[in-house]
């Protein structure tokens, strides 16, 4: 059942190559079907396996659906569905979006290390094609180079894992006792391999170019693709390697937070500013994951979901503004709804009460304090302080400066989606359980690897 999530988008992608005209509606179809499949089979009780070609797990490649991967896939597909609702926005990128959706779903669901490498490479390539929208070729090329290097390092790490444990299956690898020295090599290479996609500090040069380059890339790459990458960080460092190599992640993430915020502070281009802000938020999430406990991982993904929703709205509105107005002073006076949802999203980013960011940020700080970690909350609060600086500057500039040019026509679908998501953010503040339960289930599933191993290796259900 779950392999359909990958098969349908792939199939429709190839079909759409033949009929260019209807690629948009095919993409919409794929997104709808995926969402229906997911919503039909709600959270799986325990771990469900789908062995490809009926090869039993330690030997064949298998797809794993447990609480963690289900929540991740659900969020990723939700964002794809939202993008598919805006055909004018998607233009001729339906095919690569479908491919990206297939690769992302595969990347999350796969239980095999090499298979995850293949899906990661597909994701990088399709992300590059999407990043090249609006003649952003040079930044896309840079992203390709960096993605390529990261891919080969990821492959190297997988091979080291294979030589150390003799198997590529994640459950098998996490069960086997790996010698300390090779464990160091594996986890370091994985940190670098995933670091590029998870936007860790020295490796996130590409972010401002790709996200700042056009209006479609940040909306989809910033939310769902980075969610998939951060899921994999949790999966590898939580379940497979039981938190080994976490301090490196922790220090890199802290540097990322500060670097991202400070870089965003000086940025004059709105898309690039919030690109750096998403770098910083990714840093926050990675740092929380590296704490390793079930609760910290759950809160990390709760924060990531809030941040992803907020970023979706921000990039949607910012993309529309950048490509419709030359100078952005006082633009929101003409688009009240867009402005309202943008402001609500940015305030949720900072963590003002009345918005979802507050719930996640406060719970994270509380959890960290009960874990006796005093440095990370200080860094996070400092980062939020800098964030208040540039977010308020942008809001004030967009709302209150004297506007100059005439009014471009408002995108009806985009503004309704933005408004609905903004109201969702407020709803999450009032009743955080909407995201929190799913995120907590995900955290628990990622943290205890015994349940994952026992589920994968013992229960084998024939696939379709």
């Amino acid at each position, binding site marked *: 059942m779950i392999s359909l999530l990958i098969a349908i988008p792939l199939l429709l992608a190839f079909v759409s190559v033949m009929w260019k005209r209807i690629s948009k509606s095919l993409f919409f179809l794929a997104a709808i079907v995926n969402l229906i499949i997911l919503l039909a089979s709600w959270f799986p009780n325990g771990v469900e396996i789908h062995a490809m070609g009926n090869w039993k797990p330690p030997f064949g490649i298998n797809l794993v659906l447990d609480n963690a991967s289900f929540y991740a896939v659900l969020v990723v597909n939700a964002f794809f569905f939202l993008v598919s609702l805006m055909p004018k926005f998607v233009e001729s990128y339906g095919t690569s979006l479908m491919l990206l959706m297939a690769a992302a779903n595969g990347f999350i669901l796969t239980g095999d290390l*090499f298979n995850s490498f*293949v899906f990661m*490479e*597909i994701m*990088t*390539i399709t992300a*590059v*094609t999407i990043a*090249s929208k609006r*003649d952003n*070729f*040079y930044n*896309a*090329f840079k992203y*390709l*180079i960096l*993605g*390529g*290097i990261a*891919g*080969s390092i990821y*492959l*190297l790490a997988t*091979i080291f894992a*294979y*030589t150390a444990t003799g198997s*590529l299956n994640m459950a098998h690898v996490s069960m086997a006792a790996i010698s300390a020295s090779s464990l160091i090599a594996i986890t370091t290479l994985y940190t670098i391999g995933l670091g590029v996609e998870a936007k860790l500090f020295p490796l996130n040069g590409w972010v401002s170019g790709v996200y700042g380059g056009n209006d479609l890339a940040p909306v989809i790459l910033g939310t769902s693709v980075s969610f998939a990458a951060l899921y994999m960080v949790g999966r590898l460092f939580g379940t497979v390697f039981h938190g080994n190599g976490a301090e490196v992640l922790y220090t890199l993430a802290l540097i990322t937070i500060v670097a991202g915020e400070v870089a965003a502070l000086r940025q004059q281009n709105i898309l690039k500013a919030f690109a750096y802000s998403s770098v910083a938020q990714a840093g926050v999430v990675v740092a929380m994951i590296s704490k390793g406990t079930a609760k910290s991982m759950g809160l990390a993904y709760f924060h990531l979901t809030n941040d992803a929703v907020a970023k979706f709205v921000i990039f949607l509105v910012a993309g529309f503004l950048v490509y419709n107005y030359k100078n952005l002073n006082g633009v929101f006076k003409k688009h009240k709804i867009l402005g309202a949802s943008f402001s609500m999203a940015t305030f949720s980013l900072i963590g003002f009460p009345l918005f979802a960011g507050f719930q996640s940020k406060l719970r994270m700080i509380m959890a960290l304090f009960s874990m006796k970690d005093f440095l990370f909350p200080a860094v996070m609060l400092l980062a939020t302080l800098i964030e208040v600086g540039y977010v308020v500057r942008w809001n004030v500039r967009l709302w209150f400066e004297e506007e100059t040019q005439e009014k471009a026509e408002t995108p009806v679908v985009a503004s309704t989606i933005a408004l609905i998501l903004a109201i969702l953010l407020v709803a999450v503040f009032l009743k955080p359980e909407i995201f929190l339960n799913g995120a907590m289930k995900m955290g628990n599933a990622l943290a205890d690897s015994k349940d994952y191993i026992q589920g994968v290796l013992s229960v084998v259900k024939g696939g379709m």
Partner: protein
Amino acid sequence: MVYAISIILIGIGIYGLMTQKNLFKHLISLSIIDTAVNIFIIATGYVEGGKAPIYTKSLPNFAIGKFVDPLPQALVLTAIVIGVGTLAVGASLLVRIREKHSSIDVENMKGVEE
């Protein structure tokens, strides 16, 4: 010994990436790194005096020690395909960069805002 070759190749690739100004050379050094990693993968699967892992009449009985490990070879096949894919996308991007920025040399590319 084969490991040493692949590490040297990776070194060359990274050196190429760092020093070259022409973007196409970046692409080539990227593919060098890819091939180096593939060589490394094959090297891990090597068994002293092992034969190609194919059942033939001359090797009817199931002799584990005799075969070279087949799995890395399978992996390399996909890795090569992916390398080609990346190369293809990179090359097409370079064509468009040449059109837009009138040169693919990092120094004198016009219109690249920081």
